């Protein structure tokens, strides 16, 4: 059960007709709370299961069963949404009110308000919408079986979208996010200098003997960074710290630490890259 008290995603695609029998066949010991859409749904299930009237709920029995579900959920280490706890408190409150001796009950019976009244009202109200939801489901079922025509050429010349204020808000957010990204990029770009890049590469080659330079180029975020990287690599080649190897024309470029460049190492590097290509 999610913290929102709604069905988790995996329930999203379970059609009603597959869920209903499952729910009906659940024994009290296997029922899971996430089958229910909330405390009202769970209460309706209990009332149906006990075959009692919604207008005359045996509150003690139903409360006991309701709490039993919550305990079982706890035993399974599942978080219980606050709505279920609020309902538990309500049930206990109603139960206690009904246990109180009613003074002059007989005389006032007509006026005395049944403590269950508000709960019954809510259950009846909720039950209507639950039925309405099932009707919507069956309508959607039929609609999913009908198809409209395929695309026409005239559709493609008109690639436009309908919009609501929420689309508008989303569009605004998208534009602002892009702006933020660009600003961060500008800052990042201005921060990198050639000297820093060279230092960065030197550090890299202290740790590693071979570096895939093509991959480094591909990872550059901007043209400027690419240029600085290129200049830094040339500088390291010039001072003979590294040597570049390319296994084939337009293939990937490897950088080998210069001290390790002996014919054997070079041959190994070449063989390994060929293997890479075979993959």
């Amino acid at each position, binding site marked *: 059960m999610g913290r929102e008290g709604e069905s988790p995603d995996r329930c*999203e695609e379970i059609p009603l007709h597959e869920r209903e029998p499952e729910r009906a066949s659940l024994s009290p010991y296997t029922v899971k709370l996430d089958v229910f*859409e909330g405390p009202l749904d769970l209460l309706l299930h209990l009332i149906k299961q006990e075959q009692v009237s919604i207008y005359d709920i045996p509150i003690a029995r139903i409360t006991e069963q309701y709490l039993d579900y919550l305990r079982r959920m706890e035993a399974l280490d599942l978080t219980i949404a606050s709505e279920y706890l609020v309902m538990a408190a309500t049930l206990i409150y109603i139960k206690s009110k009904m246990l109180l001796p009613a003074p002059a009950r007989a005389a006032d019976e007509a006026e005395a308000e049944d403590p269950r009244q508000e709960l019954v009202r809510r259950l009846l109200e*909720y*039950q209507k919408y639950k039925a309405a939801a099932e009707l919507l489901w069956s309508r*959607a079922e039929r609609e*999913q079986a009908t*198809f409209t025509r395929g695309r*026409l050429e005239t559709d493609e010349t008109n690639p436009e979208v309908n919009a609501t204020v929420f689309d508008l808000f989303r569009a605004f957010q998208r534009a602002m996010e892009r702006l933020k990204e660009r600003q961060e990029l500008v800052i990042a770009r201005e921060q990198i200098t050639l000297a820093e890049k060279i230092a960065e590469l030197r550090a890299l080659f202290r740790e590693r003997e071979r570096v895939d330079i093509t991959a480094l180029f591909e990872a550059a975020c901007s043209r400027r960074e690419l240029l600085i990287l290129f200049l830094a690599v040339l500088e390291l080649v010039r001072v003979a710290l590294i040597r570049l190897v390319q296994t084939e024309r337009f293939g990937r470029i490897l950088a080998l630490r210069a001290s390790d460049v002996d014919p054997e190492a070079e041959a190994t590097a070449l063989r390994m890259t060929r293997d890479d290509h075979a993959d």
Partner: protein
Amino acid sequence: MTMRIEELKPILEALIFTASEPITEQELAQILPEADRATLAAALEALRRDYEAEGRGLELRRIAGGYRICTRPEHHEYIRRYLKTRPSARLSMAALETLAVIAYKQPITLPEIQEIRGVNSARAVRTLLEKRLIEPKGRKPVVGRPILYGTSREFLIQFGLNDLSELPTLEDFEELTEGASVS
């Protein structure tokens, strides 16, 4: 001189076919000022009856206040074979319940929806907004000025309704549920 039904019918068929969404009688009237409204209505009715004939794979439906040509539901299996689609992801019960509350109580705010359902419904409302089944309908003039939600035209289209009055009333459901729960 106004257009005759027999002249109008093929033009209406071509227009309804071309429209990518249900096209309303009013839109059709605007495109065809040379037809008077009564003849237009009669031609639409005649066209609908043509489509009702036996042995057709298509039907002309009234949806969301407009007309639309669709395949008949009984052939869905073959169309799915071709499109290689499965029935698309259905709405969760949480989303359907929320949609039902909005459809019958619109315009309604998120707290009001939650009051009826007894559970947090923010995620369901978001899902419905994303699927364009509901849309904001202004704000309620109370503290916090919460957004009011109502169903959209897309809701009518996706549930095959011509307008909201085609939904059964809540009283109809009362009868149904009473029968079931008191047993």
